[in-house]
């Protein structure tokens, strides 16, 4: 043992119960900071993802869809729905004042395929008018989505250029979508001709009847308002003039989701703050108790030539070592919790949840380690201050 580091290490290992307790406390703090930060970021990312998918200002859906589902959490999160409205509604909406562009979508069915663990949704859209699927394309063959081409969600196990066989009909994957953490991830988008062909090949009479003689039904119409028009007025006009449909302003829907997200996010932040305060308090108390017990030892170091700065370095070094060890110990379960609990949390919260990338998660982990280590050192600073102010001559004589 030639350095103060050795003294710090020996002080920690000869008091294993106290050291382990402080390491566990650091682990809890680090875990809460890491998982809390990841949760808040995932919610924000999920919301941002949803907002970018909502390239439309207004969504028009069959009125029945609203009565069957919680609109905020189902349709807007990209969940497919089997309610339909006549396709003439599309033309009516397109001709209304204040509408700049529209694009219709038609949900056919959900079916189990070899290429996906969960049921795959088959959705028809118009690649020429589409402005909500295209932003999600991560990789494509460079061409347009034509007949018997499909755009596959990220959970579909197929790459661009692969051939998928659906109801015995081969289709080519012409584009792959980015992860959205919505039903888009397990959806195959094709043009009307492709989806009709798949319905015909399905052998399901209900699906065949839906598409017989061409599709004259749609599940949703996505609307972009023209510049200078008030979205609220355009939405109201659509609701007044077209029967059995419901136009919903994206921002209104998003504000509901945003409000839910804010509550969860605020709760996560409050929990993090509470854990931080309790941890800092316990760490400070532990440091003060430790220095109280070792007053004579510090006085001895002082008479042997330790400066006040060296005594502070010992106290802070011990605190930093245990809190850093604790913070690292908390990161591993944190990573497991984040990786394993994301899906469960999304379902439980009913909010869009999109984990950040590996780089951001690594930064979050580094932040959690830093916060925990600094909290430990900061909490010990009270004890360090007490030690360096103590009257060595009095302590060494009286103890």
């Amino acid at each position, binding site marked *: *043992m030639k350095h103060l580091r050795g*003294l710090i290490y020996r002080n920690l290992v*000869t008091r294993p119960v106290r050291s382990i307790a402080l390491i566990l406390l650091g682990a809890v703090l680090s875990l809460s900071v890491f998982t809390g930060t990841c949760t808040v970021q995932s919610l924000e990312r999920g919301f941002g993802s949803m907002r970018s998918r909502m390239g439309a200002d207004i969504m028009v859906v069959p009125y029945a869809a609203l009565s069957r589902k919680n609109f905020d959490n189902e349709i807007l999160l990209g969940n497919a729905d089997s309610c339909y409205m006549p396709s003439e509604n599309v033309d009516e909406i397109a001709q209304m004042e204040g509408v700049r562009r529209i694009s219709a979508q038609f949900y056919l069915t959900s079916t189990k395929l070899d290429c996906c663990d969960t049921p795959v949704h088959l959705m028809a859209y118009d690649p020429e008018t589409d402005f909500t699927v295209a932003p999600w394309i991560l990789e494509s063959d460079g061409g347009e989505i034509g007949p018997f081409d499909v755009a596959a969600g990220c959970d579909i196990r197929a790459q661009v250029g692969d051939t998928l066989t659906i109801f015995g009909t081969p289709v080519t994957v012409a584009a792959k979508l980015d992860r959205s953490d919505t039903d888009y991830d397990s959806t195959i988008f094709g043009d009307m001709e492709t989806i009709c062909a798949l319905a015909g090949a399905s052998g399901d009479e209900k699906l065949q009847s839906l598409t017989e003689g061409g599709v004259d039904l749609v599940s949703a119409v996505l609307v972009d308002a023209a510049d200078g028009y008030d979205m609220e007025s355009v939405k109201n006009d659509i609701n007044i003039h077209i029967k059995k449909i419901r136009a919903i302003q994206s921002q209104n829907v998003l504000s509901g989701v945003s409000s839910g997200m804010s509550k969860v996010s605020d709760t996560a932040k409050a929990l993090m703050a509470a854990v931080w305060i309790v941890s800092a308090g316990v760490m400070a108390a532990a440091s003060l108790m430790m220095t109280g017990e070792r007053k004579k030892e510090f006085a001895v170091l002082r008479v*042997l030539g*330790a400066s006040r700065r060296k005594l502070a370095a010992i106290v802070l070094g011990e605190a930093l070592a245990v809190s850093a060890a604790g913070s690292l110990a908390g990161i591993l379960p944190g990573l497991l919790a984040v990786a394993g609990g994301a899906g469960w949390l999304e379902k439980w919260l009913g909010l869009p949840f999109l984990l950040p990338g590996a780089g951001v998660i690594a930064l979050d982990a580094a932040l959690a380690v830093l916060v925990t280590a600094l909290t430990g050192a900061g909490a010990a600073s009270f004890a360090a201050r007490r030690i360096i102010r103590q009257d060595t001559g009095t302590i060494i004589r009286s103890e």
Partner: protein
Amino acid sequence: MEVIAQQIRKEYYRRGGSSNIFMAVEPCDFVIPAGQLTLIHGRSGSGKSTLLNMLAGILRPTEGRVFYDGTDVYRMKDVELSAFRNLHIGYVPQGQSAVSSLNVLENVMLPYTLYGEDGRDAALAAMERFGIADLCEVMPDRLSGGELRRMAIARALVRNPQVLFADEPTGDLDDENTAAVFGTLKELAQEGAAVLVVTHEEDSFRYADRIFDMNAGKLG
């Protein structure tokens, strides 16, 4: 190295009692000459440890100055004074003073460790001198009172200090060890160090070059 104290006194503030001020050491001049063993004798609570601590540079006097070869130690910055203590002053505290997390060898090496130096050989030599060389790896809680005391003395002497302070250094020792300790302190003085020992044991008088009595804060 010679230590000279000029009109040093120490007062403590305390609550209660007839007066709030307690005079631990009355103003006094004092010299610890190099090459001599100086002894301060007095009863418990007489102020002798307080005087020793002021002279050792670890207890700032309420008033007065302490010079080491002409340098006023209480005018030094803390870092300077600490390094000065480490290099030039040996100190044997009263009572148990081992660092409980370190073994005997590491305790004796501490003055070197604090400044990142390797003091293993010097520590082994000091331990040999006091008959505790076989206790290198033993933890302090396994030592007897006498062994702890010898360890503290070995640690105080490990850097061959020019000034040595010892506060009741033989309190836990038997006659044989007491004689050995005072013999060593006397040797150190004869080698040129300034040695000050505070004790209440009159048996130690025979080793001293100079003896002072202290009573109720007054140095006689």
